[in-house]
């Protein structure tokens, strides 16, 4: 009787361990094709700006880096962060790290994010940075953007634009005055000073990209 019980427990233990192994395998596979990770080289792109011109990172000869921000017109989180994105550009463009905003949504699915509506929004809010349409939705999957707003801080180096930070702008979407950790500002400051960025990635709720 005792023997049977021990056997039973061993079997249970085996199942337990096996389930863990399976879990890890799935998790490892899951991470493979999720876009850029910290330290990766980000590809350049050529996308249409709301002013009608095409914009690429290579246009910015003297830039030290870029704040590539996937954002849109319609998402409540993107709207909550609009003024803060303008403030980031005002603060860091003079320091060589301009904001490049990209709308990753498909306007045929999300009519509020059409090119015409993007123009309207950029005019109304007085965007000081390019606001590009990811036409054909090729760029956002490459970066691994999953939501709006989603920030990728790139550092321009001799080998290309290196991804230094991926995540959210700060730790309080509701109230800019209650922010305790301005993640993006901390990251840009550290990058410009040649210091270690911490944290390098952050998570936030955002609108899924459509």
């Amino acid at each position, binding site marked *: 009787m005792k023997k049977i019980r021990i056997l039973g427990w061993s079997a249970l233990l085996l199942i337990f361990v096996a389930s863990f192994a399976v879990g890890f395998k799935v998790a490892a596979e899951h991470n493979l094709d999720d876009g850029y990770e910290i330290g990766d080289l980000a590809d350049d792109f050529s996308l249409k700006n709301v002013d009608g011109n095409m914009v690429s990172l290579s246009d910015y000869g003297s830039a030290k880096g870029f704040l590539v921000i996937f954002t849109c017109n319609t*998402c409540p989180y993107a709207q909550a962060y609009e003024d803060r994105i303008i403030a980031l550009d005002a603060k860091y463009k003079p320091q060589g790290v301009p904001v490049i905003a990209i709308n990753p949504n498909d306007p045929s699915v999300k009519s509020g994010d059409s090119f015409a509506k993007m123009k309207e929004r950029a005019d109304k809010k007085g965007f000081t940075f390019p606001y590009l349409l990811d036409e054909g939705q090729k760029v956002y999957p490459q970066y691994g953007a*999953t939501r709006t707003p989603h920030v990728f801080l790139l550092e321009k180096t001799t080998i290309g634009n290196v991804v230094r930070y991926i995540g959210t702008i700060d730790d*309080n979407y*509701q109230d800019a005055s209650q922010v305790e950790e301005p993640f993006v500002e901390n990251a840009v400051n550290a990058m410009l000073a040649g210091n270690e960025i911490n944290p390098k990635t952050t*998570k936030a*709720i*955002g*609108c899924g990209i459509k």
Partner: protein
Amino acid sequence: MTRLLLVLLVMSIFFGCAEKKKADNGKSDIVEIEMVVKDGDEQNDIPFPIYDFDGFEPLLHNNDGKTYVINFWATWCKPCIEEMPHFERINSEYGEKNVEVVLVSLDMPNMWKSRLEPYVVKNKIQSQVVILDDPKQNDWIPKVSEEWGGGIPATLIYNKDKRTFYERGFTYEELNNELKTFIN
């Protein structure tokens, strides 16, 4: 015991923070719901419990023999609204079978009265609706699941034996099939 609960309740109102309850005590959780409600004028008459993450977290760790389907959604999230009928159907079909559906709204405070409540009333939502209102998302998202990037819809299904997180939307069939793997 009742007196102790009462004292706890009063203390919590004074200190304005929820005390973590033992996960197996379902009734205390209900008391806790009242405590976390904030004082802001517009929030007083919201008919759903409003949690910060500390107050919400015990809902992710019940150990009472039930299977929990925890769906993270918001009224502004179109795919969330599209899958809502499936969660409602699961709630009604499995209600007698020890399955509890909890709809966790991530709507922003200014939407609670203007969008969330009207949506729930209009669509006669029967599942339990709670509000998770905690801007420190980078702290709490990984506590729901390390796998979660922050997109919604997202759903956690768990019971005392099994736990799986899904950062995706569901059809009824997909949801039903997943849920069946939790119920023997």
